[in-house]
């Protein structure tokens, strides 16, 4: 098992190197004056020249790259122009907000999509199957920011069930003492049920928005892989041996059908991390996505670069976890390593 983990981590290293090189290239190699980007739109030529020397942009590229990697290894992502705060600190303090939102969205999507996909496969050709097909096709056609706004209109303006789409907590509440950074968990640890309720209410609509978005690919792949497993010989044998349909589906077919679903989760994460940015903008969610959007609008480049790098590293780690989970579920993947 340790050997497997080591070999999987080794396969992630080229991606990591590629990601660092690309984020470096995005500012330094492409046409356009990096110093001007870092200086912002209103800078004088002297200010730009000063920043160029300060950032070491007048040195040769390989030296710059070594400087960049050295700074990175110390966790230094530069400083934001508009706030003056180090980007790394800012991202670290905003990451839990984004993570709480993304994870809730993913968990809700999985909780709906997997049973739904299984039902569609088991009852192929019935209304469940057709509903599954319609929802998966519609789900991939919905712009996530548009779904969010529709839900805000219906549940906040029309029905009044949801609170105003303004961040993680109602203004009358203070954030619970930080343990995990997830308000839902922290408020429970603090035993503050009122804050928990407020945090959950704020989280509900953005979570549903993300879940609707992530649901479609998961349900589609669950249905497809369940269908192919159900028509395989070992399922036929299990049925012929007189096992109950429940046991055949949930014990024999389900575990095998989950393998392609886990592989697809990598792609789902890629979509989710992008959709997260849009959802955060719609709901004024104080996560790293809205941080990057604010920085983009004011041409404040260091936070954007830090954001892209942080998201890419997070994505690589998530893919690594998916790979390892695959190994846990599928013994064949373990023996190949």
């Amino acid at each position: 098992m340790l050997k497997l983990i080591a070999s999987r981590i080794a396969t992630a290293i080229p991606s990591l190197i590629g990601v660092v090189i690309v984020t470096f290239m995005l500012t330094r190699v492409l046409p356009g004056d990096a110093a001007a980007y870092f200086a912002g739109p209103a800078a004088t030529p002297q200010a730009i020249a000063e920043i160029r020397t300060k950032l070491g942009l007048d040195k040769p590229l390989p030296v710059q790259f070594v400087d960049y990697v050295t700074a990175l290894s110390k966790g230094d992502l530069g400083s934001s122009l508009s706030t003056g705060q180090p980007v790394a600190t800012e991202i670290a303090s905003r990451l839990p907000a984004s993570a709480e939102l993304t994870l809730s969205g993913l968990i809700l999507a999985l909780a709906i999509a997997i049973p739904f996909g299984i039902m569609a496969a088991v009852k192929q050709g019935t209304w469940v199957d057709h509903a599954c097909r319609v929802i998966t096709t519609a789900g991939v056609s919905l712009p996530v920011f548009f779904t969010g706004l529709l839900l805000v209109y219906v549940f906040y303006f029309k029905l009044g069930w949801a609170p105003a789409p303004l961040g993680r907590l109602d203004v009358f509440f203070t954030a619970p003492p930080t343990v995990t950074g997830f308000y839902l968990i922290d408020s429970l640890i603090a035993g503050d049920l009122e804050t928990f309720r407020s945090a959950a209410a704020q989280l509900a609509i953005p979570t549903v928005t993300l879940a609707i978005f992530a649901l479609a690919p998961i349900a589609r792949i669950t249905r497809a892989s369940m269908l192919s497993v159900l028509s395989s010989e070992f399922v036929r044998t299990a049925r012929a041996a007189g096992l109950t349909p429940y046991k055949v589906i949930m014990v024999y077919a389900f575990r095998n059908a989950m393998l392609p679903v886990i592989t697809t989760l990598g792609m789902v994460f890629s979509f989710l991390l992008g959709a997260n940015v849009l959802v955060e903008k719609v709901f004024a969610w104080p996560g790293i996505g809205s941080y990057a959007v604010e920085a983009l609008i004011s041409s404040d480049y260091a936070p954007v670069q830090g954001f892209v790098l942080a998201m890419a590293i997070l994505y690589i780690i998530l893919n690594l976890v998916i790979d390892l989970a695959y190994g846990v579920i599928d013994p064949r993947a373990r023996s190949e390593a």
Partner: protein
Amino acid sequence: MTLANPADRGSASSSSGLAATLRHAKYVISENPVTGLAFGMFLVLIVAAAIGPYIVPYDPLASDTKAALQAPSWAHWFGTDQLGRDMFSRVIVATRLDMGIAIFSVALVFAAGGIAGIAAGFFGGWTDRIVGRISDTIMAFPLFVLAMGIVAALGNTVTNIVIATAIINFPLYVRVARAEAAIRRQSGFIQAARLTGNSEWRILLTQILPNILPIMMVQMSLTMGYAILNAAGLSFIGLGVRPPTPEWGIMVAEGSAFIVSGEWWIALFPGLALMFAVFCFNLLGDGLRDIVDPQRRT
């Protein structure tokens, strides 16, 4: 349902190419009305993009503060926005820009990713390794995030949205083109072309490329929807297109401020237009796949 009618396929392969394809297309459309619907929707988009600016009732940029924030009515089918601009005219006129961004980015990635993928699959070796490494590096990023970074680095313009959208789709095209080219690399007609003295690049362009073109067309249609969503997402967060230019993503963003006070129409109609376009291309992609590759029908 899972396989096309065998008799139909038999006659299709025995007669000449174009007529057979058309007959098969007609068969697919009659068999699957959804594909027919998708073609109809596609036609609507094309007409709106081509002649939209000439037929809309109002100037999409003309503001009329007296008529600001009006709900949909007979005078203003989709209502008016905070400056009194007619939303119907703006939604229709925006079609050209949105479709333009998507079509240019897809054409760009079709050329770049298609050729790179074919070369990787056909030549193998170093070409394959380099192209594969570039694809892997792009895939290591969450794609929308990478697009944000590219637009931020290249500069905040519509052209760069096109380029960013093309770059994030690159690996998808490479994968399809590479797989299809690798299958055909050692097939009989390629060896025959090689024996008659064609150069490798000539074989690639005159034998392999036409052969995998249909499959690449399907890929184009399937990624058009994603390209539209991606471009609209970028302009929603304020990249690329600048107000007051009518564009669906930015119009939804402008309308988002009014959703909480109940003016739903400003965001709704551009959002519906986006959905319409994406839905159309997704259905069209599935339909085209049925025509090109009857065995892969789902």
